[in-house]
């Protein structure tokens, strides 16, 4: 009989299962920046509270059903002398019982579910600091994220525009107005709140209030083409004071100061970068196809969150973006090494 006995394949499998479980425990302590169970905002906590309830209900049902199954299999295994058991056909009371009991459990789940749905989706709660929500527009692109701040205007009157790194204040409700101008993406920063899709001709919304300063990581969660896997973003939450300072810096143009940076600014034009990228303070850089690179020097990552923003990484990217993110819209422009050096200096000087 193959069913787990004291020896043989069953015991080996049980040990294997225990080993795997142990690994699970060990790995749980590792650094998990995208964890969905480490909430850092009010919205994420509401989801977590619901998850805890549902998890334990499911665990209860799991133990009950799997345990019951194992018991039945052991207790009623065929033994000699018991060939034909009693031929019961059913039991209406049991049927009613095990229809109603799960329905009751589900009601226990459904009520808080619907409450949380409305709490998360109908209207943002009042902001703790008394301000109206900070509205930020999020536009999914192939394969990066654009962020616009209607509340913070540049000298030209355009909204402050950045890419891939979303800076927000703590203690104030952030209201993200999300859409796309191409295919469907999904905005997901796990520790801040759940995800929502970014679609053309639709506006979707998320809101949350960050409680503590820090960096939070996210990733696009709707298949959007060849580089869907490398479309990440990070959110930097700052204290309100720091945030105001950041806004003040970011709404002013950054200019090239050193010689090599100026050389880079010129290379930015001659190599065609200005046709796709906008930089506030660089009059020729007005392209809208690619990410806005004003104040690129202050960003912590590049290429939609997949690389640290170091000179080496930036140089590698400029030399051939296709080796790092094959299929992405930025082609290999065959930039000369001297220009690469200058461009790196220029871009990193834009703080």
């Amino acid at each position: 009989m193959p069913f787990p006995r004291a020896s043989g394949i069953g015991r080996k499998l049980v040990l294997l299962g225990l080993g795997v479980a142990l690994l699970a425990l060990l790995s749980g302590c590792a650094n998990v920046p995208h964890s969905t169970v480490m909430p850092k905002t009010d919205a994420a906590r509401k989801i977590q509270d619901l998850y805890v309830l549902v998890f334990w209900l499911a665990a209860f049902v799991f133990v009950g059903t799997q345990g019951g199954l194992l018991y039945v299999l052991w207790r009623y295994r065929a033994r000699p002398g018991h060939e034909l058991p009693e031929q019961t056909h059913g039991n209406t009371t049991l049927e009613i019982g095990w229809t109603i009991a799960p329905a009751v459990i589900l009601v226990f789940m459904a009520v808080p579910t619907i409450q949380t749905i409305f709490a998360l989706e109908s209207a943002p709660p009042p902001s703790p600091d008394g301000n109206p929500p900070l509205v930020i527009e999020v536009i999914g692109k192939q394969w990066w994220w654009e962020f616009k701040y209607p509340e913070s205007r540049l000298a030209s009157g355009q909204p402050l525009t950045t890419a891939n790194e979303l800076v927000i204040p703590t203690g104030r409700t952030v209201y993200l107005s999300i859409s796309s101008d191409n295919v469907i993406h999904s905005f997901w920063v796990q520790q801040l709140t759940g995800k929502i899709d970014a679609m053309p001709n639709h506006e979707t919304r998320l809101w949350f209030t960050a409680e503590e300063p820090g960096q939070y990581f996210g990733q696009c969660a709707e298949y959007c083409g060849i580089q869907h896997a490398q479309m990440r973003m990070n959110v930097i939450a700052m204290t309100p004071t720091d945030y105001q300072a950041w806004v003040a810096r970011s709404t002013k143009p950054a200019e090239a100061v050193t010689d090599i940076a100026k050389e880079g600014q010129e290379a930015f034009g001659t190599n065609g970068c200005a046709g796709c990228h906008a930089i506030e303070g660089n009059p020729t850089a007005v392209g809208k196809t690619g990410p806005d690179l004003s104040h690129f020097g202050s960003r912590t990552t590049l290429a939609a969150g997949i690389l640290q923003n170091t000179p080496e990484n930036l140089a590698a990217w400029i030399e051939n973006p296709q080796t790092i993110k094959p299929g992405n819209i930025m082609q290999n422009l065959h930039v000369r090494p001297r220009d690469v050096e200058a461009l790196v200096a220029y871009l990193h000087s834009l703080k």
Partner: protein
Amino acid sequence: MAVTLPRPAPAAPVQAAPEYGALPAYRGIVSWLTTIDHKRIGILYGSTAFIFFLLGGIEALMIRMQLATPNGTFVSPDAYNQLFTMHGTTMIFLFVMPMSVAFFNYIVPLQIGAPDVAFPRLNAFSYWTFLFGGIFINLSYFVDGMPDGGWFGYAPLSSIQYSPSHRLDFWMLGLQILGVASLAGAFNFMVTIINLRAPGMSLMRMPIFTWNTLITSFLLVFAFPAITVALLLLMFDRMFGTNFYYAPNGGDPLLWQHLFWIFGHPEVYILILPAMGMVSEILPVFSRKPLFGYPFVVYATVAIGFIGFGVWSHHMFTTGLGPIANSFFAASTMLIAVPTGVKIFNWMGTMWGGSIRFTTPMLYAIGFVSMFTIGGLSGVMHAVVPIDMHHQDSYFVVAHFHYVLFGGAFFGLMGGLSFWWPKVTGTMLDEKLGKIAFWFTFTGFNLTFGPMHFLGVDGMPRRVYTYGINQGWTGWFGLNWLGWNFVITIGAITIMIGTLIFMYTAFKALRGPKDAPNDPWDAATLEWSLPSPPPVYNFAVAPVVRSRDAYWAWKRRPQAVEAGDTEATLTVAGHTVGHVEFEEEQPSEEYFAQERNAYHINPSSMHMPNPSFFPIIAAFGLTLMGAGMIFGYALTVAGFLYLIVAIGGWALESTG
């Protein structure tokens, strides 16, 4: 105590009988190309589906080789996106569905005591259309590359603007062709089950697998038109410049999602109900007691069929439908867990108090109950919309649907395969090898898909060709390459080993002696009363059915019927173990004698419908029409002419 019906007399060997009417008896490959026999068509479906399963499995293994370690370079991003698209499309449309249909074909007419399906040539047409459609989609490899829009093909990514090559044209047209095959089959099985049941077999006396076939067919009939329209609108957008999903002209990408999921959700029930039917047949046989709560299992399955049309937007919880719509669909999705639970409890009730024999089919059936329950629990978690805002498009969903599709549908299908193997092939599978294959598959399955729950909770999205070293999904003990993804790949390889062992077991059986008895398991339904394999005409005389589990009732109805009683008490060693009731007036002993004598009828006097070329020609014409939309309209016209000729010939052909 069992009464077994005698086998047909060997006096007139079946093979030599001119079974095919006035036309010459076709031999060899032509006999397969023109067959309209449901049993042969079932074998064709099953073999073809299994080959596609291996293809889909190779695609899965390549995915796992790429994802075993971070920043993998096993395949390019483009290749990976094609792989996951084709893995899903192949497994759903070219494996699980046709494998289920293989069993509908072979088993259902036998279970209801019919000589064949209602429309044998339409049946053959369904198979050939499926085969050509499957080949057509895979031909894309040689043109522009395989489809890479995901199995669900969301707009606008699937539009001509963002997918300019022919990849998605192959996907779109291939699915349309496969849809015709599925619809034709569904019509056929519904008419067969509704109209061709043996005398005395009321709906509530039908075997439960037949019930599941009926409800699955109902789901097919009502769900497929939705994807047909979705694909037609996509085709018009891609080829004729319409604006259905074209956002700049006002098109709404959500229209695709609604139409797709109105099909897509019933589709997942189409995938699971046949396997549930098989499990519902296997558990009673190897517990030696009837299915617990048969009427409730039937009502629950019907309820699942109906409610299944009311939950589709739970695939769209993150599209901003609004709190009211989200709440409605959350509630309906939770509701569908109730009849599902009823079925699970009834399966357990079947085993409770039984005498359980752990054969290979039984292991798969028990595995189904256990693994499907897990998948159902994770599914109910998704129904909680705020939680789904994390789960959607993460590995948690991948874990969920593989538990219900692999741990559920695949285990059920393997259970059915090992259960009905003797009936179909006349050979017995080696039990020991079968069990080894099961344990490798079961272990590998849990090693592969269990950890995906953890990855989902850790925030790993799906459909990603790689991941970084600092994202929390790898890096155990300081090793960059070690993490759950690596374990999962090991699990996938373990599944492969289990599959190879099963294939070896099957080959070994097929090369062995054809000595399977007609009823190796002491089973309950009519197909087991026939020889293994059954004669081409199935039943010499339509069996008369007097109760549910008709063959058990037949075997266990002792002298009571001879005495003219309407019920009998079953006793074993002096203990009463049950009752068998006959609800209709009983024929006489003389009738039973005639029935037994019926098996001595010379098979050459049996008249089977003629085989026909027109189903395969029609299927080919239809496929050419699809191909012409890519390669040139001349082909479409040619295909249309083929189709017309085939339909004409079909209509005018005498079936003898």
